[in-house]
């Protein structure tokens, strides 16, 4: 297994090319889409770095909330939705609100780390 260059280095290089070489030579919609493409790759870069820890944390938070230490994240997320719909988990449950805030904040740290709604 060889990682020279690494995925991160390759992504960084393509992002740099799109922002600093391609976009300035393009005009109109094409220039706009080149910058959106660079933003998409920067999101992928954050996702590679942050997703494993974010998913592990989400699994731990939902496992505590549901008292279910065996199910995986996808099944736990579905169960949280079912419990909110049935009213077993509701807006006056501080543990639910704290878990959803932490999980949503971790998702935004990948999707849109500068979003104003993230500020305390």
């Amino acid at each position, binding site marked *: 297994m060889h990682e020279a260059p690494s995925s991160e280095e390759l992504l960084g290089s393509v992002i740099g090319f799109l922002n600093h070489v391609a976009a300035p030579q393009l005009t109109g919609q094409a220039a706009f889409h080149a910058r959106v493409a660079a*933003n998409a790759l920067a999101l992928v870069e954050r996702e590679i770095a942050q997703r494993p820890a974010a998913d592990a944390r989400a699994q731990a938070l939902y496992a505590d909330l549901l008292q279910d230490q065996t199910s995986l994240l996808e099944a736990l997320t*579905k169960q949280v*939705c079912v419990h909110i*719909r049935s009213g077993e988990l509701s807006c006056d449950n501080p543990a639910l609100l704290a878990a*959803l805030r932490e999980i*949503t904040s971790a998702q*935004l740290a990948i999707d849109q780390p500068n979003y*104003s*709604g993230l500020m305390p």
Partner: protein
Amino acid sequence: MTALIAPLTSLMQARFGPSAEVADMTRLSGGASQETWGFSLPVHGQAPRALILRRAPFQSAAKGEAIGLVKEAKIIAAAAQTGTPVPEIIHVCRPDDDLGDAFIMAHVDGQTIARKILRDADYSRARPRLAFQCGEALAKIHAVAAESLPADLPVSHGLDQLDRYEAIYRGFEMDRPVFELALAWLRQNAPAPLPTTLVHGDFRNGNLMVNGEGLAAVLDWELAHQGDPREDLGWICVNSWRFGVRENRVGGFGPLEDLLAGYQSAGGHSFEPKDLTWFQALGSFKWGIMCLIMYQAFATKADPSIERAMIGRRASEAEIDLLNLIEGRPYA
């Protein structure tokens, strides 16, 4: 474009005289369901008129909740009658005009890009006035008499929209706990509906033409409907339209107090703050689902652009805004 110039020229000559020539025709914006074109009309012996053609592409069907351009023009004309700042409607096209579903309006000078309006020195005089002026404009929109609206304009109140957007979300079969919690909260806290008025339906940054003095015109009436007037006040408060200036609840440019003061000064009612918060939360929920709808357009290859795909990742911004509203956080 060339297919449009000949019918547009004959229409303009019939209206403004045989010397009228269509010049500088430029595509300003547009998608699959409608296009906006700017053009100028040099008329002999006068300064050229700047005009806008809004039309649906030939062979396109009206998409989603859009009401169609003939109705849109009728509503703009009705809103002008109550003093709402809107572009002057010059002509509503008939089938024999050969321009399709279309109308022509006067061009209004100004800026719609929120980041410029909220940050550029050119708008430093406008910014502190905007929230009050938006309140005045909304009161005038909500005062439009039902008789002057198209008879078949859809009626949609807050809970109708919650039902519709919930059904769309369920159809996607995605498990998003924050959207589930928002649905539960919105159902528990729904205010009783107010008497039906005209609702603009998309009153936010991007659809407001602003010049150095403030609000110049309210644009993009394609989502107009009859419903609860608080929908428009809640929508302009959604954090997504504040473009980073979240301490200014109204569009990033002003406080809610200014919006309400402007609304009442122009004859509008007073509202319970918590009911406006409910409509703001409904707005954030709708925006979150709209992000998923745009992602679906990408996923089904209806619109394969990277931009469509990336808007899907904005659903999480609606989620944090919903949590901030449900928890009653500052600047929510």
